[in-house]
């Protein structure tokens, strides 16, 4: 279950005895978001896809973009010529079959649907994906690792993190306004945050392993039955 930042904010306000005012809301929300961004938890990043507009051979990457995974020219606007090599200068973008353009650094064993795929044939620079000058497409659909945020740009938070993040926000706030909170309160919130973080990271690792078990199972099956294992890695990369 996921919860909103508002929910964690309310918990933090009651801890700090600030429920009778909204004067600290914005700062506390910032602290909560900051804490959630640096968790390294299972839900910190998510795979998302978006269709971008190409202008002068480049397209602006979405907000909260972290790492490029793959791209495809949507059907109807442009597609590819099958059987090309990875050299962007000789790549012909004119055919009709879907082709994946992948980040080989991340998806080392990616095998997309369609006739073929090309790796690293464009650059990413200053928030833009820069395509070869042979590109005639007007749009490109991009799959990417993104910070897991909602429509307002706030982190999506797992319910299990509510206690830890509210303790983090309370601790940080109490450090700034030391005169209003005792050293015992500050150290108690700090200890709670550390304990909760350790506990939840451990839980996330168990959950991540459970998700991996499916891919491991498929891999073992494919070895035993002597079939191609390429598709297994393709499935694995979706996590």
């Amino acid at each position: 279950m996921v919860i909103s930042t508002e929910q964690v904010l309310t918990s933090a306000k009651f801890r700090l005895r600030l429920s009778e005012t909204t004067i600290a809301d914005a700062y506390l929300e910032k602290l909560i978001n900051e804490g959630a961004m640096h968790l390294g938890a299972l839900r910190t990043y998510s795979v998302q896809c978006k269709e971008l507009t190409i202008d002068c051979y480049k397209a602006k990457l979405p907000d909260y973009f972290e790492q490029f995974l793959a791209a495809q020219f949507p059907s109807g606007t442009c597609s590819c010529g099958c059987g090309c090599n990875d050299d962007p200068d000789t790549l012909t973008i004119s055919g009709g079959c879907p082709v994946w353009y992948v980040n080989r650094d991340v998806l080392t064993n990616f095998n997309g649907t369609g006739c073929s795929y090309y790796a690293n044939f464009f650059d990413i620079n200053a928030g833009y994906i820069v395509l070869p000058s042979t590109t005639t497409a007007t749009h490109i659909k991009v799959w990417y690792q993104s910070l897991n945020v909602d429509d307002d740009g706030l982190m999506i938070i797992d319910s299990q993190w509510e206690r830890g993040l509210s303790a983090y926000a309370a601790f940080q706030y109490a450090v700034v306004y030391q005169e209003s909170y005792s050293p015992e309160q500050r150290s108690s919130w700090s200890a709670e945050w550390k304990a909760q973080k350790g506990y939840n990271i451990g839980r996330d690792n168990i959950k991540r392993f459970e998700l991996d078990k499916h891919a491991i199972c498929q891999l073992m099956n494919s070895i035993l039955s002597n079939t191609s294992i390429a598709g297994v890695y393709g499935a694995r990369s979706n996590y």
Partner: protein
Amino acid sequence: MLLQAIRDIIRALPDGGYLSPDNRFQDEFVDMLIHSARAWVIRDQFLKYKRISPQWLQTHIPEYDKVFQDGSNCQVRFVIPQVIALDGRQDGVSFIGNDGKNCTFRQVNNRATFSAMTKDRIMNPQSGRKAYALFSGNEVELYGSVLLTSPPRIEAVWAIPTEVNTYNMLTDDYPVEESLIREISRVIMQQDMVIITKSFADMVNQGKDTSAISKPQ
């Protein structure tokens, strides 16, 4: 509280003899002493217990007036009575939001802080994600898309309760608990009124202070 009123209090306390018995204890003067003593006692209570008693709160619903607007479409400005300060962080504003809804606006008490917040992706008041209320002296500026749908409602501990537009002096209780009235009267009598009550009254209103003790020759 107006500067003139504060000046009158300060001028009246040590020189009670210049005033006639009538104007020493006139209603407006004593009211001001009560308001200031109430603010002092409430602040003292808040510092001890860190809570705002519901008895101190009054609701003020400011009226929209075109004269106060600056022509900008991104804010609405209202004139309000003064709010008391409670401690270094918090003042007497408890709730500001839309009337009839429990949707709170985020309070900012300083334009410099407000300006700094606009530089932050999460806190930016102009993102439109949340409504913000910037308090500046006797004005409040509201920012956000929800603020024009209905008049704002402000629940606060006001410095002068009689200036709040929902308060009726004849029918409404004075916004303080019964248990604090004794404390208020103690503050007034032991600090403010002690000089006045020990001063001779100027019984003859002739423009000359006959109560003043003449200097030894």
